């Protein structure tokens, strides 16, 4: 079912104000740093949190406004929690049957419905186990089966892969892709990983500081991030400034030269592997040369990711060989260079 969420949750310490519309079958990925309001948004839609102003409408039903608050158990919003929250005293099958039973189905009918979902999520041989006997990935799959078996109009998933190791997360990602695209209603997946967002979602919503700052397809957002968080998530350097004939000047000082002759307020982004490092000031063609000090060094795939404290924090990916040749350590001064053609510029 469709969703129209136009609401604000005001708290003394922070405010979350969201304008979000979604159509049937849409899978929305929600990304943003900690404290951006992602969980608040999900909990408000689910009815686990009262909104301060605005409205939330699911299908044709107004479920919340300033005065009214349809309780969570009557909203038909399924929720998958980060740490699954399977009922520890119930078997996998009884956990999955809990929703149908709560809706008043008889034990046998609820059991049938539960087994159907258990089968679909490939959990048949775990049906008799208790949650304590499951791995993290299995438990999260059961949690998804449990949410789907309650026949929700909308499905919300709060960082479903966050507590899992890499291979379990990969498996769950594939499974989510399959089941969320088959799900007839709106689903919203909050995630901290770029891969989840890219693989699972049809559309991304970027939250920052309690507001939606960008929406678009994963490809659009990855190519043109508008927040540092997303840039870091997809592994890009991002600066914002005023451009004049391709020279982007930052409000706090420093400039990035782009090949495009643009003018006006812009974002400029460039990939870390386009940034070269030198121990002395480089001579030659590059249009961008900056100095800085090394903040951290960490392996990143086959390369080494170097965080440099320059006019803004920047990341550069260099080969292990280059690192050895440069003999760089944390705290060392370093020079960075970047070709103007590597910089993409888009309106802010």
């Amino acid at each position: 079912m469709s969703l129209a969420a136009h609401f604000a949750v005001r708290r003394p310490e922070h405010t979350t104000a969201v304008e979000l519309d979604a159509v049937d079958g849409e899978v929305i990925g929600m990304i943003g740093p900690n404290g951006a309001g992602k969980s608040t948004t999900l909990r408000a839609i689910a009815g686990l949190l009262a909104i301060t102003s605005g409205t939330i409408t699911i299908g044709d039903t107004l479920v919340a406004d300033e005065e009214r608050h349809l309780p969570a158990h009557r909203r038909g919003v399924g929720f998958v929690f980060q740490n699954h929250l399977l009922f520890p005293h119930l078997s996998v099958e009884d956990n999955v049957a809990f929703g149908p039973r709560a809706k008043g189905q008889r034990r046998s009918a609820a059991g049938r419905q539960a087994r159907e979902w258990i089968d679909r999520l490939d959990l048949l041989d775990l049906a008799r186990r208790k949650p304590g006997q499951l791995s993290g990935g299995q438990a999260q799959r059961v949690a998804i089966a449990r949410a789907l078996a309650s026949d929700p109009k909308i499905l919300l998933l709060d960082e479903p892969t966050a507590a899992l190791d890499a291979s379990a997360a990969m498996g769950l990602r594939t499974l989510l892709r399959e089941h969320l695209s088959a799900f007839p209603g709106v689903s919203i997946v909050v995630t901290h990983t770029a891969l989840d967002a890219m693989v699972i979602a049809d559309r991304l919503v970027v939250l920052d500081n309690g507001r939606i700052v960008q929406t678009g397809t994963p490809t659009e957002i990855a190519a043109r991030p508008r927040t540092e968080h997303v840039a870091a998530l997809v592994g890009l350097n991002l600066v914002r400034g005023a451009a004049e004939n391709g020279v982007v000047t930052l409000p706090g000082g420093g400039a990035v030269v782009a090949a495009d002759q643009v003018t006006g307020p812009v974002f400029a982004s460039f990939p870390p592997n386009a940034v070269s490092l030198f121990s002395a000031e480089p001579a030659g063609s590059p249009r961008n040369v900056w100095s800085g000090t090394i903040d951290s060094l960490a392996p990143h795939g086959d390369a080494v990711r170097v965080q440099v404290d320059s006019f803004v924090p920047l990341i550069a990916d260099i080969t292990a060989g280059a690192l050895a040749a440069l003999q760089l350590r944390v705290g060392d001064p370093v020079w960075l260079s970047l070709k103007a053609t590597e910089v993409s510029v888009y309106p802010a």
Partner: protein
Amino acid sequence: MKSDRARVLGSAPAPLVVPAVAAVAILVVPVVAVVIRAPWRSLPHDLTQPDAILALRLSLETTLTTLGVCLVVGVPLGWLLARVEFRGRSVVRALVTLPLVLPPVVGGVALLLAFGKTTLLGRFLESTFGVTLPFTKAGVVLAQTFVALPFLVISVEGAFRASDARYDDAAATLGASRWLTFRRVTLPLTLPGIVAGGVLSWARALGEFGATITFNGSLPGTTETMPSAIYNTLQLNQEHAIALSLLMILVSVGILTSLRERWISGVAP
């Protein structure tokens, strides 16, 4: 035999060990004295005396009723105190725990002043429902409930607090009302704590003496429970009183062991 910790940190210091041993002695010596002085040979005879059986039966009957009353009203109160924020919650909690620190005799006096035959409430109960509380079995149950209920409420509230309230959220998103969530999620998850609280309050009711005797006197078969019987018998026949005391010690130890094995040291099923 020294543990690793003692080897590394040195032995426990005397200023802590000596008082600790004294504490154990204070608690254990009187109980051991009863066991030593118990008339083991005449025990079967003493415990099958009609008055002993009468008192034991009355105690079991009233304390089990008390336990039932405590569970029926105490578990909901514990849940409210743990899960619902309402005005005056801390006041309610303080009032509920007051009988814990109140001398039981004072509790008995208070019950007399509230439910005694000549009081407003007492007269109302008698004229409307034909119920008289003082000097009746119902009065015994009331006195026992007065002292035992706080134990149940406190431990049940603790159990509800310790259980993760996020399960309530999960249940709500699956369509369960709060009442259903309470029955199918919260109650099963907190059952060990509720059982422990129930046993604790039952043991307290079993040992209740001050409030019961003040409110109800001690009429054999009606209001003379085991503790009253022991007290009354002690004046007439010391051996007999010791036998009854031993019986109560055995019951208490039985309760403690069952608690320990099933609910305290064990993990929730």
